[in-house]
């Protein structure tokens, strides 16, 4: 039986935004029983037009949510009045509305900090009802509300998916890093198919690595990314010679290959060939034989598990190497499940 957990929903939430003139705006949302009142109520002292705009934005953005709940009224307020031309607070209003209803949980900035840092967001949109937004949430640049959990924009012609992996750097600075894969179809579709019809695997493998770019990485890391993706696509069977890909990392300076599983999963999701998790994918694992779909173990089990347990949110999917299964701390899986996440220890990618 699956569990749907909207756990420990707060009654108040805050989201900050830096205005164009440099002031810090705080949008506070609170939740109370609806009791036949309007679903969203906005108050901004002395600026009814901005309050009206805020209500409109929040209502439109709610159309991109799956779960409709008419039981609560959300009251939003601003502490200072932004200029009428400034629209970058819109994303903060949407996020405050989501946090207070438990739809979105902001990541804690530093896992060692005891109190969660208030989310900070800048961004605006002309198509809130489609979830499109051009904004930044806590240093994470998003083009779509679903990108908060790494999902692809369903109306964009470039499929971009993020996956997260634990970055171990001596305890206090451990964070979840992300890797982002964007794929778009190769335009000249006739030529590569004809060309590689005879010698698909030999020729396409070479071509494949040239279509993968990883800007910002040093050369050896780029090479590793290309080999990993080409190998995993070879395993997939229907992936070679169709895509032009760009790989980006949130933090390009790191060592080790434990990001590989996250990279491969993001790639499979971006190409529309994997089941989609409700939340983020958090994965760690590498392989010496991606072309066979194998997942090998990686180092740093204890700190990574600890970090994952701290950072995981409802709906997230945690993927670990099979070798870790017997060495998980007692209660780890149960605790993850209580937080609404699910766990799998795998020795190969793909269906079951």
């Amino acid at each position, binding site marked *: *039986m*699956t*569990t*749907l957990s909207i756990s420990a929903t707060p009654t108040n939430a805050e989201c900050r935004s830096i205005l164009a003139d440099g002031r810090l705006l705080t949008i506070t949302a609170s939740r109370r029983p609806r009791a*036949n*009142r*309007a679903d969203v*109520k906005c108050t901004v002292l002395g600026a*009814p037009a901005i*309050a*009206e705009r805020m209500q*409109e934005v929040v*209502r*439109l953005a709610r*159309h*991109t*949510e*799956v*779960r*409709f*709940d*008419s*039981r609560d009224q959300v009251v939003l307020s601003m502490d200072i009045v932004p200029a009428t031309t400034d629209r970058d607070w819109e994303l903060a209003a949407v996020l405050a509305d989501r946090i207070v209803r438990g739809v979105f949980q902001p990541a804690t900035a530093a896992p060692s900090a005891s109190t969660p840092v208030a989310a900070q967001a800048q961004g605006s949109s002309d*198509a809130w*009802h*489609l*979830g499109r937004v051009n904004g930044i949430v806590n240093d994470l640049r998003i083009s779509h*509300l679903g990108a908060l959990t790494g*999902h692809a924009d*369903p*109306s*964009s*012609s470039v*499929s971009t998916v993020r996956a997260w992996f634990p970055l171990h750097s001596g305890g206090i600075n451990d964070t979840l890093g992300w890797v982002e894969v964007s794929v*778009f*179809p*190769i335009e000249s*579709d006739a030529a590569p198919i004809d060309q590689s019809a005879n010698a698909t695997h030999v020729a396409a493998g070479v071509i494949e690595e040239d279509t993968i770019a990883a800007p910002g990485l040093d050369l050896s890391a780029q090479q590793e990314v290309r080999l990993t993706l080409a190998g995993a696509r070879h395993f997939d*069977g*229907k992936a070679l010679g169709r*895509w032009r890909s760009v790989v980006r990392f949130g933090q390009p300076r790191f060592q080790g290959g434990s990001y590989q599983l996250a990279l491969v*999963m993001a790639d*499979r*999701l971006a*190409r*529309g*060939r*994997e*089941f*989609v*998790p*409700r939340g983020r994918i958090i994965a760690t694992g590498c392989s010496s034989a991606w072309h066979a779909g194998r997942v090998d173990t990686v180092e740093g089990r204890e700190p990574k598990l600890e970090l994952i347990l701290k950072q995981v949110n409802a709906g997230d*999917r945690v*993927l670990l190497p099979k070798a870790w299964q017997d060495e998980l701390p007692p209660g780890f899986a149960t605790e993850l499940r209580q937080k*609404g996440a*699910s766990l*799998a220890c795998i020795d190969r*990618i793909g*269906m*079951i």
Partner: protein
Amino acid sequence: MRFFNRRRKPATDISGLGVSLIALRLDEGDVAPAQGTVVIFNAAGHARRVAAGRVSCEQGETVFCFHPGPYTVDLIPFASAPEWGLRLRFVIDAANPRVTQQRFDLFLYSEAAERLELAGFGAAVEAALQMELAQGALDLPPCTSLEEWHAFRAGLNQLMYTRYGVVVDDCVPVDLGEQIDFAQILKARAQQAAEAESLADADAAATATATAAIPTANATAAATFSATAPRSAEPSAAVAPVPADIHTLSGAPSAPSTVPPPGRSPSVRGPQSAAQQDAHALRRLFIELPALSTELRSLTLPNGLPIFQQHQALLLRLGMASLNVNTMPALAWAAPEVPLEPQEQLRRSRDTLTALAALDEAWSLLARLHLASHQHWPMLLEEADRICANLETGLSLRRAPHVPRTEPSL
């Protein structure tokens, strides 16, 4: 006299029954094929199944004929992963003697139009499945383990039986890469975006002079549009660009021209008008709410007073909602001899669709309650509370001729 009537009526087209056609409506005098089963609904909606053959019914009775199958349909569980699917094979079972009303008969009576095509049915099932997965009622995560797959299968089987009355025979994950090309879909999206942009430019040039209140008009139109596809969110936004019929069994996977352009679809109506949608939704609520209450009443409850009380309260609320539906005022009238503006009629029919979405969620909740172990009941009853609240909100707004006074924002 009957003789002449019969001669004049063209024979009903029953080709494809059992393959691409699940059920169809027959009239007096038609001959049902031998493998089919005939269901006759009397004027009060009570069904009786009779053997196939020449249909004879009385005045006011509705006759359906269905083929038990098996049928195979490909489903895409996640709109954003169109190359990874599930192949579902299902049958329509013989009547279960332990229940007074077969769920499939209820489905036929309440939802089927003249013909129940396999493709349309598959699309409905797919939408329901995507909704369940997005809400977390079913789980099909990447790298599914065997236990997770079994849990998913159990939930899916129960959902299909509780919601549609069909029995899942087999369900396997399939690679749909042969029929669906995600790269083509992305290319089609890029093309549409370009077209929409050029159209928007043309529009902007044309209407540059008439500047009156364009942003608000756009916003309300957008709100209307997304409210018509009721509350289905990221998947809904996801459903829009991916052609819904791209995976039907007809084997015509490339239908990018049918995709509504994302930017400018507010004027796109479904095949039905608002009034028809409203009537259809109210009919479904009228027929299905009592049946749903009956099923909920017959569940085996875990021990304990709090759950019993919540269950009783739930049944009471559903009963009240049912009464609310039975006495619903007409769509087009604000009061006797006072017609309602078309704008308000649209608003009313949207609110009916909210209630209808709650009804669908209630059926899937019933499926989950069938499978739930005792410690899951409180959580599911909380979900039931939400669904009832949505149902009541939708119905009360449907009843009101005008939107009630909203609070001032200051």
